[in-house]
């Protein structure tokens, strides 16, 4: 009898302690953050997230890698349809139009800050970046985070091995680059002279901006859904024809779609690579030769070149879900606040090759002499802001851009295989791309 009473009271006391303990400790509000970073970049980002989590106890952000940018986008959309969308998702810049028109699926960033009362100043971002992610009224829809721009990485040791002095060899125009690449390949200094990653981004989207020619009508789609592609202009065709000729003579080797060509530079295979400025982290880790960063080459015949380049990379979008609470949105807002401070923007720029997206960061580092000590690190920012943007170089907003990019890849490859002329390939790309744009227009009008 006594033992039973003792046991019962013991259990009652333990239960009370547990219940009290649970009530006393409030669970932090959890936020799901999906991103598309692997390797060095993923580690840096998840490090920042860990810092945020440790700096306070109200909120906890759970980062997870969901695959490449394209895979992350698809995963987020599928999750939304299932009602389990993440709170925050990193979406690449070409998904902007699809996300912008998504209506009830996303919560624009300016609305998020208004509703949660977290203070935020949209004027902190440089125009090239803010303009890309804002609606026509200038209100910020997504949070800029990692913006890059393509530059040309140059293997100085390979140039020297081919008998070219990097200090005096001109590499400004495509004609210069072609000649240098040919010398490198002929001398056997590297198997591949020049190549590029993200063919559509570097050779069409940025190419058009850099040469101040339209990528698409209606200011590259910024001014309306009735936009049409313009990548079969004489300049675009001449450029593709040049690439076909360069491949035939051996100075250019096609590196594949997406980021497939990225490893070709740090491995020493290609002596010059037009690729994202964000490749810096990888080059620092893997390359065993002396390298430098330069502006992308341009065609001297084009009057408007060089104009300025446009951004790539990604931004952070807030997603809606049926049972999302204001506390969860507050958690997201606080996290966005955390990573957009001047200090964090500077750290992100220094740790990776991504651009300093806030006013003040570039100027501060310049004043400190950072760019003198680290030549090449200022090149992306300088190229991006070389001139005030024109209608052709503010950025682009084309619906279903991933699909259009895939079409451009296909047509370029057919031209490089010799199955079509450059003119035919680009005419077909325009035709197919316009069908996609009309479908997008039909969905939203």
């Amino acid at each position, binding site marked *: 009898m006594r033992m039973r009473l003792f046991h019962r009271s013991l259990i009652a006391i333990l239960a009370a302690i547990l219940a009290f303990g649970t009530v006393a400790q409030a669970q932090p509000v959890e936020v799901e953050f999906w991103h598309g970073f692997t390797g060095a970049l993923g580690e840096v980002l998840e490090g920042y997230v860990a810092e945020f989590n440790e700096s306070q106890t109200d909120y906890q952000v759970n980062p997870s890698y969901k695959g490449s940018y394209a895979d992350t986008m698809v995963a987020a*959309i599928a999750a*939304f349809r299932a009602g389990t969308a993440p709170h925050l998702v990193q979406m690449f810049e070409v998904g902007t139009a699809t996300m912008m028109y998504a209506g*009830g*699926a996303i919560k624009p960033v300016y609305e998020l800050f208004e509703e949660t009362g977290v203070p935020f100043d949209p004027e902190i971002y440089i125009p090239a970046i803010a303009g890309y992610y804002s609606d026509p009224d200038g209100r910020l829809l997504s949070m800029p985070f990692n913006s890059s721009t393509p530059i040309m990485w140059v293997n100085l040791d390979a140039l020297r091995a081919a008998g070219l002095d990097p200090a005096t060899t001109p590499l400004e125009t495509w004609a210069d680059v072609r000649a240098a690449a040919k010398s490198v390949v002929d001398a056997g200094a590297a198997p591949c002279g020049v190549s590029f990653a993200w063919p559509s981004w570097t050779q069409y989207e940025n190419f058009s901006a850099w040469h101040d020619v339209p990528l698409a009508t209606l200011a590259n789609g910024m001014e309306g859904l009735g936009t049409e592609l313009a990548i079969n202009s004489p300049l675009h065709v001449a450029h593709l024809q040049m690439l076909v000729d360069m491949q035939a003579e051996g100075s250019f080797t096609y590196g*594949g779609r997406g980021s497939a060509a990225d490893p070709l530079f740090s491995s020493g295979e290609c002596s010059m690579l037009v690729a994202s400025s964000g490749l810096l982290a990888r080059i620092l880790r893997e390359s065993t030769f002396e390298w430098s960063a330069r502006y992308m080459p341009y065609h001297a015949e084009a009057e408007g070149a060089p104009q300025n380049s446009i951004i790539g990379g990604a931004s952070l979008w807030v997603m809606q879900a049926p049972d999302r609470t204001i506390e969860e949105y507050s958690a997201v807002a606080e996290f966005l606040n955390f990573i957009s401070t001047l200090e964090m923007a500077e750290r992100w720029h220094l740790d990776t090759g991504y651009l300093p997206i806030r006013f003040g960061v570039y100027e501060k580092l310049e004043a400190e002499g950072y760019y003198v000590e680290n030549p090449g690190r200022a090149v992306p920012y300088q190229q991006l802001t070389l001139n005030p943007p024109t209608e052709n170089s503010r950025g682009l907003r084309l619906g279903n851009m991933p699909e259009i990019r*895939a079409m451009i890849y296909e047509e370029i490859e057919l031209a490089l*295989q010799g199955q079509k002329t450059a003119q035919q390939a680009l005419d077909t790309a325009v035709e197919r791309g316009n069908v996609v744009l009309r*479908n997008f227009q039909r*969905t939203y009008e």
Partner: protein
Amino acid sequence: MRRRTIFRNKLLPYLLLIPQLAVTIIFFFYPAAQALYQSMLFEDPFGLRTQFIWFENFQTVLSSPLYLEAARVTLVFSVAVTLGAMAPALLLAVMADQVIRGAAGYRTLIVWPYAIAPAVAAVLMLFIFHPTIGQVGQGLRALGVPWDYRIHGGQALFLVIFVSAWKQVSYNFLFFLAGLQSIPKTIVEAAAIDGASPARRFWTVVFPLLSPTTFFLLVVNIIYAFFDTFGVIHAQTQGGPGRATTTLMYRLYRDGWVNLDLGGSSAQSVLLMTAVIALTVIQFRYIERRVHY
């Protein structure tokens, strides 16, 4: 009086079948019905704006020359993979059947490729055949062969066929070997006594008796070539260069996942399902007649 076994319990058979039926309904019939429904919609990726458009998606898909191109690629690909997987498997099975010493060792090794996941096999072969970092790739280029599957469509198609067939050889080998071993030795010996040469013995006696296995493997291999080769193509060539390795399955994936055209992709999957069902029905009706059980 003949004794017939009558199963008294009327309910038990159905109860025993329910788990299997449930799995079939949930994982096959329901998604198929959903695909059929979605194929008649025009919607944005998020599903927030949908319009019912009847058969317009089917019209768009079937009238696209690129779809017909993908169908052609799929035909070439499936025939090549099926032949490429079955013929070597038959040869290996015949040889393994005759070996006495180390038979278990050979069988184990031949079966191993089947255990490798498609994407892993694809990446493995990618590294072997890569023009600049692969042993075979470098070797071919050293011999003067212009080997670069990133640029030449025919080479890319050859590569994905090779890898897909290689993976499936093990599966076919197992079944062929089992089939060969179930053929009574007495029949083959009788043919030998009658004076038939080994080749004659094989083609007139063994092969017809192997026909149930061959028929089964034909059906399975064709379905494999249509559907399960997606992983290999995605890991190696992503449907490129140009559209050289874009099969119907890969095109379906591209339209659904990358282009987020769910209506068009569902229409394609309905068409593909219909095509494979028709193919299987034809096989059962016409080829099965020639199978000796």
